């Protein structure tokens, strides 16, 4: 008979007792959600892994201050937002030379940093970066959760139907923005 999967609370207790592998399991369960949050809030897709590492690193050092160990998910989501906002402020400071009208250019530079090898991906990420934050979060959560809508909805704390509504709005905006500029995969394959 297999052992039941330990809960977040179990892994928090074990981590505090010195079991780093337990913290690894927390990372496995929540890293995708953290990636979605840090990218959605910071707009920095290229820095997603650094920001995720920073989020979990801070969480580990502060774990003893977690009051309700059953709330690990929302707690680390708060840390992720904090880390992402810091990154965004730093990012804006770094790019202060750009005027407000050049935000789109800045967004494109970030996306370009992330996936320099793929022009199509760069343009899609630039378009996602211009969505409202709620829609950005839904898109990134959905795709980081490997298109699992239930997990994505749970990760960002909304209902399944609500999640679909947000995603639909986001995808309509993206299609409107990108329009025919993206060749279909079929066409691309055919051309290839």
């Amino acid at each position, binding site marked *: 008979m297999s052992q039941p999967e330990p809960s977040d609370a179990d892994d928090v207790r074990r981590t505090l007792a010195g079991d780093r592998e337990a913290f690894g399991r927390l*990372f496995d369960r929540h890293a995708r959600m953290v990636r979605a949050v840090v990218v959605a809030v910071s707009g920095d897709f290229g820095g997603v*892994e650094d920001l995720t590492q920073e989020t979990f*690193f801070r969480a*580990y050092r*502060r774990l003893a201050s977690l009051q309700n160990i059953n709330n690990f998910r929302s707690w680390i989501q708060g840390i992720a937002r904090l880390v992402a906002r810091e990154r965004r402020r730093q990012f804006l400071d770094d790019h202060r030379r750009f005027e407000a009208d050049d935000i789109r250019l800045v967004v494109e530079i970030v996306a370009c940093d992330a996936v320099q090898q793929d022009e199509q991906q760069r343009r*899609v990420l630039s378009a996602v970066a211009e969505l409202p934050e709620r829609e950005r979060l839904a898109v990134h959560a959905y795709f980081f959760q490997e298109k699992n809508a239930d997990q994505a909805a749970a990760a960002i704390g909304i209902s399944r139907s609500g999640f679909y509504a947000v995603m639909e709005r986001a*995808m309509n905006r993206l299609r409107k923005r990108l329009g025919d500029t993206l060749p279909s*995969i079929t066409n691309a394959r055919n051309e290839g």
Partner: protein
Amino acid sequence: MTPTTPDDPIMASLAATHSAVNARHAQARALLLESLVNEVPSPSRPRPVVAWPYIAGAIGLCTTAAAVALALWLVAAPSPAVAMEKLAKALDQVTGYTYRMEMVYVSRKDRGRTVRQVTDGSWRTTPVGLHAIMHIVETAGTNTESPGAPKTLVDLEESHQANQPGIVIDHLKKEYWEVNETVAANSIPPGSPQVAVYMVQQRRGRVLQDLGEQRIDGHVARGLEIMLDASQPVSELGPTSAEDKDGGTPALDWRSTKFEVWIDPKTDLPIEFRCARRGDDFETTYRFTNLNWNVDFAADAFDTRAPSGYTELDKSPFAEGE
């Protein structure tokens, strides 16, 4: 959600981009755990849930204290305009007062000289009465290390009552003479703070600046620098024997003079007036102190009878064209 086809390029692109990051999950996990080798979760700190009520309470107390302090400050230290109006209202109620004026005139002409005038006076508003005892002493030279011998120039006593001729008595020469000009609230008696009192009562002055607080004769006083209107009455304040010798006007004109008024915040009445007049080669400073407000004067306080044994003069020896 809008149905998508497997060939939707946007969906495909996003899936590919995010999958690429997820594909490195194992490496990221290993990197994270490795970075934690020398780290330990920080020890538990006092629970914020316990501390917050105290913090909130402290913030509340501080806010309340700040509000109370602000209210007290507003009451104790009103704006200069408000303080000026409070001063005027307090002076409106004044029926009379006693005062001391100390004037120091320093001339730097020739060897220089210093004239010091001290006037102890009483002023009654209704019915009008004035009594002033004036002493003027001149010291030759302005070198304080070797001053000349002081010489008494004037020892005068002046009294007025409403609707009666006034009298000036020269105790040095044992002479006296009548002063026909009747005194009134707006005919400023010499050597008195009445010029400032009257103008403030008439709201014909404005505050130039708040001078803050100063301790005067054991009282904490608040200072205002005020400028009297140009339409002020001319004062004869000051010794005619001093400035007119150096070409100045004996009838002092207070227009464009700045007064300092130091006010007792408990009564809103002045504790002291100060002002100064400066020329190229002289400086005169005035201090009106020993201010006692709303004094009950004795019945003979403003007696205009001449002392026995003194000679009556036809006119003032200081009058023009003498």
